[in-house]
């Protein structure tokens, strides 16, 4: 009996050794995204963008003489799952660096795990400001936090002649954080803040909130939510006869999907976005943008997904640049190298600046923010 156990454990050890030897032929990158649940559509877009980057890098010979391998896990749009996925990627798959986790609440749930296992994560979508201000030195964010969006928006509030503003935001770190940062900026500008209404991330009927907003004397509503909820809000606002100016934030609007699904209800809405796939010539890196959009179309993905998927593409390219710079696929070396990279991203140069309390700063890159408007079913860029 004992001999059998010994033999079995020896075999198990041998298999474990062999399989780890086999996987050492590739450099693993963990990808922690919502592939099911409320944010399934967005998370899938990001993963598809990440795959384009990985294929592009591998086609050019990979990194440090090895192919890169994305280890993709579903965090189910659920913060608890997101933390578990991070733990699995780091301890079981031994990924030395990760990309994730789409939503702010998901990313915030992962962050303690990064400190625990001393592994860096490139944050591609989340926009709650506190992600890079809470003193987590393993976070490197390429998406704009809401205070950066608010700062970009500051320049145009005069042009839009905003006087009184209501908010309708998703009831999580992303939405509440946005309401806070935008309110602060607007108060400094002398704009009155009216209602701040929230909605659950899975809510489908926002008529009650919209009826309440309809009854106020504000002229503008700032809305923060992902694309599916925005579509519903526009339809329901139109049905209620809400005639206020609507501006959305957060960069997860997929304007093409909104136009396709909300139809006329989407007209005259404005959106703060972080990528311009409709006019590659106006992006900071037209050549790369054109390549990416071409590849995206070639793979038969929905064009509407570009505004999400480019972040997965940029995220993997950021990680790849850091691995190249580090010269080895080890967590500590990659983390240090992330501070030194300068990647031509599709939405501006990706260079990490220090953010948060001294001694344990997070990395924050500052991408461009654009304001677009949907006019008669077409996307028009507004000058900031």
């Amino acid at each position: 009996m004992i001999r059998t156990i010994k033999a079995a454990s020896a075999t198990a050890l041998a298999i474990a050794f062999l399989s780890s030897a086999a996987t050492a032929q590739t450099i693993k990158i963990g990808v922690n995204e919502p592939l099911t649940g409320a944010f399934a559509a967005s998370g899938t877009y990001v993963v598809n963008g990440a795959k384009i980057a990985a294929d592009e890098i591998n086609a050019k010979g990979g990194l440090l003489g090895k192919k890169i391998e994305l280890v993709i896990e579903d965090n189910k749009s659920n913060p608890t799952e997101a933390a578990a996925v991070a733990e699995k990627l780091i301890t079981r798959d031994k990924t030395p660096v990760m990309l994730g986790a789409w939503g702010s609440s998901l990313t915030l749930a992962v962050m303690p795990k990064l400190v625990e296992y001393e592994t860096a994560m490139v944050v591609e979508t989340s926009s709650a400001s506190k992600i890079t201000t809470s003193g987590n030195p393993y976070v490197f964010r390429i998406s704009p936090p809401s205070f950066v969006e608010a700062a970009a928006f500051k320049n145009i509030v005069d042009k839009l002649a905003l006087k009184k503003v209501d908010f309708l935001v998703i009831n999580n770190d992303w939405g509440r954080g946005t309401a806070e940062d935008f309110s602060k900026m607007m108060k400094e500008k002398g704009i009155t803040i009216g209602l701040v209404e929230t909605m659950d991330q899975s809510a489908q009927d926002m008529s009650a909130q919209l009826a309440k907003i309809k009854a106020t004397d504000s002229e503008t509503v700032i809305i923060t939510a992902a694309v599916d909820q925005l579509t519903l809000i526009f339809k329901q606002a139109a049905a209620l006869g809400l005639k206020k100016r609507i501006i959305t934030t957060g960069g997860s609007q997929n304007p093409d999907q909104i136009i396709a699904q909300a139809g006329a209800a989407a007209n005259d809405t404005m959106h703060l976005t972080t990528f311009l796939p409709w006019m590659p010539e106006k992006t900071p890196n037209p050549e790369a943008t054109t390549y990416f959009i071409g590849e995206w179309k070639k793979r038969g993905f929905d064009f509407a997904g570009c505004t999400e998927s480019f972040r997965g593409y940029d995220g993997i390219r950021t990680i790849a640049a850091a691995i190249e710079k580090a010269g080895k696929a080890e967590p500590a070396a990659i983390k240090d190298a992330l501070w030194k990279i300068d990647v031509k991203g599709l939405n501006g140069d990706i260079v990490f600046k220090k953010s948060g309390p001294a001694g344990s700063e997070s990395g924050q890159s500052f991408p461009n923010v654009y304001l677009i408007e949907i006019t008669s079913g077409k996307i028009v860029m507004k000058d900031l």
Partner: protein
Amino acid sequence: MDQLLQHLVNMLVLGGTYALLGIGLTLIFGIMNVVNFTHGILYTFGAYMMFIVVHQLGLNFFFALPVAIVAGWLLGALIEITLLRPLRGADIDTTMLVMIGAWIAMQSGALWIWGGVAKSIDNPFPDAPLVIGPVSVSWLRLFVLFAAALLIVLAYSLINLTKLGKAMRATFQDSDTAALMGVNVSLIYTSTFAIGSSLAAAAGALLGPVYVVFPQMGDLAAVKAFAIVILGGLGNITGAVIGSFILALAEELGAGYVSSGYRDAMGFLIIIMVLIFKPTGLFARAERVG
């Protein structure tokens, strides 16, 4: 005042569809005593059927509705025959686990077939809403309200006025006696589950065009259906209808005048209050104890 009127109109529309969900579940959960976790997925299924018929087959919107309802009926019958029939007489926990499994499998199936991107269903109604004074409501929602009302009346008549309804009530009161009286008990089980399922599919088919269609859309709907059934009393159809409007009212007024962040928590709050103060439901008849 204007705002209150708008909230009340919203409540009517919302309550009508909640009622379809609630009646369907009260038949299955309240009368058959099956904790039906597939109720939400039947709602999702109804919505996807609308999407398929209207967009993929290119057929008429009004034709798609009965198709979705019949498809829901068939899927319900299939679930009953394949999963529940072999478990008849098993304890409630076993059945519940099987239903949870079926729910997860079907939801993942929907994600696999249709993907996670939400689909929108076109409808033949004008975009501009109907405006009466301070109140504004979309034509589609008005249609949904009337269709729901019609279906509620039909379901009520079926259960209370027909022979099938009488056989159903007899079977779940005492299936042995019903069998002795010549009722085909197996058929009654299947029909009851199928009718409950078709009502859930009808709710999904009606609300799919109002909202957007995606694999997880039924989760919240199912939670609300359970809240309604508990509120109205297990197996009580009238209770389920009234419970639906109470829930819709609580959500609308809760979001309008208390806090919109807690809108969807109102259902749970109601469940807790009912369970504390009137555990048999607000509209349960007095039962003989012992």
